């Protein structure tokens, strides 16, 4: 019988693969967070533009303010100034027409004068009052994380307030409970994948100035705008917005407001963190549920499979399938259809089983008619020449009735096996006794038999064991070449007694060997004796071996032409 085996690629493995679909969830979440980040950045730009506008509004229509040079001599500011000047010059050189046009278009007499003196005011004494005014205005606007510049048309920094750098936000405290625990787990992982906003980054005012030129240009041309750029060292993202300062129709300067995207980034990171935690939880729970479901499903299917495999036992009896027969899902359906198929099979099986005995029973009546008629005929005074026909007819009837007896032999044996009693007996004594009989029954055959020294105790029925050996020996006697011996052997091997009967003669092909022990299968070419052969002998041998809990088989002899039929009996 086949041993139940684990499928190579089980349901559980498959469902685990399917569960990988859940991994799409964090990706979708990540896309969502990205979108959110973009929106926030846009919002931030708008806010910064609004701030710039507000500052600019305070500075509108004050041409005087814009013309002064900054008083502050801080190194950063000076540097920024120089850079701005340099930039303006280089721009004028590289794009003289555009820049010239630009300036001349917008130029007012004062502005032109101012430009002529681009360098000069730096060295002039500052107009303290005006600059203080700007500073005062800016002071009111000072914000934590923003830097506000005011530049005049010459790109000279008139005022600068605030700083981009701020104290790094304290790491968010972990919430209580499972979520906090999971976040503790996730945060280090996440920080590897996504950079946390850095408080430390390199953003010198000078470089900033160079890169800032676009929106400043636009602002000086009268167009407010915003831009997102990386810091000089790429460690931070800076959003800068510029707004022109108007005096009537003339642009006097620009207000530039800068801020890092750190608040947005930390917001995004928090969102990602929560998202990751939630996905992890959902994934784990989902996978656990799926796995549990798959386990249950595969358990049910395996139970069904085992039952279906064992539904037909060694004696060919068919039992019912019980598992899941009440369940209302597909597996229940499967079990029910298995049951009904098995039931039909068992009906058919029963029909086949009773077929031989029914047939023999049905035929027995007409044979009895013939036989009794012949016997009555014999009682009549008959002419001598008629008698011979009567005796021939009787011979035929006898043979017919022997065939019928053989036909029902297997089914009668099956019947008696069901009620047979088991006893412990010495198999070697039974075989020895039988061999004595065979030597009488087959006087022209040499039967080789060496009894084992020890007794071989098995459990079963000695009569049946003798009947089995009868079948094997009569088979061997039929097939053995004339003059060759039949050897019977009983050996002990690993808890089993191996009884084998070997004879020289025609060998059997693999295909035949597999079918030889089935009911009504015979591979005899010619009929060696008068006995009818219905292919039941080895089938009966198998039934008896199975009754003893053993098995039968046939192999070709390795060293010479012939076959060896073996029966294994478990030792008792």
């Amino acid at each position, binding site marked *: 019988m086949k041993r139940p085996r684990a499928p190579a690629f089980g349901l559980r493995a498959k469902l685990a693969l399917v569960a990988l679909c859940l991994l799409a969830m964090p990706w979708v979440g990540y896309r969502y967070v990205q979108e959110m980040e973009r929106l926030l950045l846009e919002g931030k730009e708008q806010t910064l533009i609004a701030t710039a506008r507000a500052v600019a509004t305070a500075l509108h229509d004050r041409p005087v303010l814009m013309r002064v040079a900054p008083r502050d001599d801080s190194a950063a500011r000076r540097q920024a100034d120089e850079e701005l000047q340099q930039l303006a010059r280089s721009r004028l050189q590289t794009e003289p027409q555009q820049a010239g046009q630009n300036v001349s278009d917008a130029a007012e007499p004062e502005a032109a004068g101012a430009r002529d003196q681009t360098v000069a005011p730096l060295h002039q004494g500052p107009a303290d009052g005006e600059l203080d005014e700007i500073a005062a205005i800016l002071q009111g606007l000072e914000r934590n994380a923003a830097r506000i510049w005011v530049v005049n048309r010459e790109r000279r920094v008139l005022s600068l307030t605030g700083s981009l750098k701020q104290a790094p936000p304290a790491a968010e405290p972990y919430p209580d409970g499972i979520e906090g625990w999971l976040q503790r787990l996730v945060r280090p992982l996440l920080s590897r994948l996504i950079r946390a906003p850095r408080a430390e980054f390199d953003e010198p005012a000078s470089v900033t100035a160079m890169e800032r030129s676009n929106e400043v240009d636009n602002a000086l041309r009268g167009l407010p705008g915003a831009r997102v750029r990386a810091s000089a060292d790429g460690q931070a993202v800076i959003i800068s917005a510029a707004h022109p300062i108007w005096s009537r129709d003339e642009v006097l300067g620009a207000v530039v407001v800068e801020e890092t995207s750190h608040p947005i980034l930390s917001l995004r990171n928090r969102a990602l963190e929560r998202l990751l935690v939630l996905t992890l939880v959902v994934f784990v729970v989902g996978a656990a549920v799926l796995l549990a479901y798959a386990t249950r499903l595969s358990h049910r299917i395996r139970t069904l499979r085992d039952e279906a495999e064992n539904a037909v036992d060694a004696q060919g009896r068919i039992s019912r399938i019980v598992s899941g027969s009440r369940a209302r899902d597909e597996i229940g359906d499967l079990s029910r259809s298995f049951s009904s198929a098995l039931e039909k099979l068992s009906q058919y099986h029963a029909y086949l089983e009773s077929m031989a005995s029914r047939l023999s029973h049905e035929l027995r009546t007409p044979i*009895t008619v013939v036989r009794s008629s012949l016997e*009555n005929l014999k009682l009549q005074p008959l002419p001598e020449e008629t008698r011979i026909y009567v005796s021939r007819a009787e011979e035929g009837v006898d043979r017919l009735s022997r065939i019928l*007896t053989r036909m029902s032999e297997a089914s009668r044996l099956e019947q008696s096996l069901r009620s047979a009693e088991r006893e412990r007996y010495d198999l070697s*004594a039974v075989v020895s*006794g039988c061999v004595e*009989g065979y030597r009488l029954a087959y006087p022209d055959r040499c039967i080789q038999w060496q009894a084992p020294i020890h007794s071989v105790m098995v459990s079963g029925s000695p009569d049946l064991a003798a009947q089995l*050996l009868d079948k094997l020996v009569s088979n061997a006697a039929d097939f053995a070449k004339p003059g060759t011996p039949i050897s019977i052997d009983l050996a002990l091997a690993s808890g089993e007694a191996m009884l084998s009967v070997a004879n020289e003669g025609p060998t059997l092909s693999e295909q035949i060997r597999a079918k030889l022990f089935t009911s009504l299968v015979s591979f005899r070419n010619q009929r060696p004796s008068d006995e009818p052969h219905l292919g039941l002998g080895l089938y009966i041998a198998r039934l008896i071996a199975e009754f003893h809990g053993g098995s039968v088989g046939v192999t070709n002899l390795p060293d010479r032409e012939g076959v060896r039929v073996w029966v294994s009996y478990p030792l008792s």
Partner: protein
Amino acid sequence: MPRRIAIVEDDPTIRANYAEALRKHGYEVCAYAGRADAAAAFRLRLPDLAILDIGLGDDYDGGFALCRELRALSSQLPIIFLTARDSDFDVVAGLRMGADDYLTKDASLPHLIARIAALFRRVEAFKEAPPVEQVLERGPLRLDLKRMLASWNGRAVDLTLTEFWMVHALAKHPGHVKDRDQLMREANIVVDDSTITSHVKRIRRKFLAMDPGFTQIDTVYGLGYRWQESPSR
């Protein structure tokens, strides 16, 4: 006065054949096709011996029922089952119903007639003890060949005719192995080997029921059976 034998058999040809053969042997025969006819006739007048088929037309176990009815009417009436059914189950069931013998239809007419004669002898022996007894004694076993009665340690063993003849065949020559063919010949039955085995088993059980130490019938595997004179305990 000729003895009356009732045959209950559903097949008309077989019925007619058996009836004729028995008539030729000087018996008076009443043949019935079905259980109802037979039962009605038996209630009017009992035959001296009844031969019953088990399956009677559509009545699958009609013979068994008829046997029970007959036994209720008379405990002495010899009953033989003559049937196509040869399974152990049917044999055991038939004998348990109180039949004196069970033959399959393989049995030839001469066998059947010999059996009928033996049964009549047994019945007669009950009525009047014969002056000269033909008896076989082997230790505690005593076989009365005239009356077909067996006893063990003085107590009667209830053997059927077939069983009686098998015991007789074995005990006649203690120590000699009788193979299945010989037993079949002695007991006048035509059955296959496994039925002989189950007959022997049944005989053993009957003796064992009276004497748990009964080991006289010895199985010689592959050969047959023999009667052991001295119990090997």
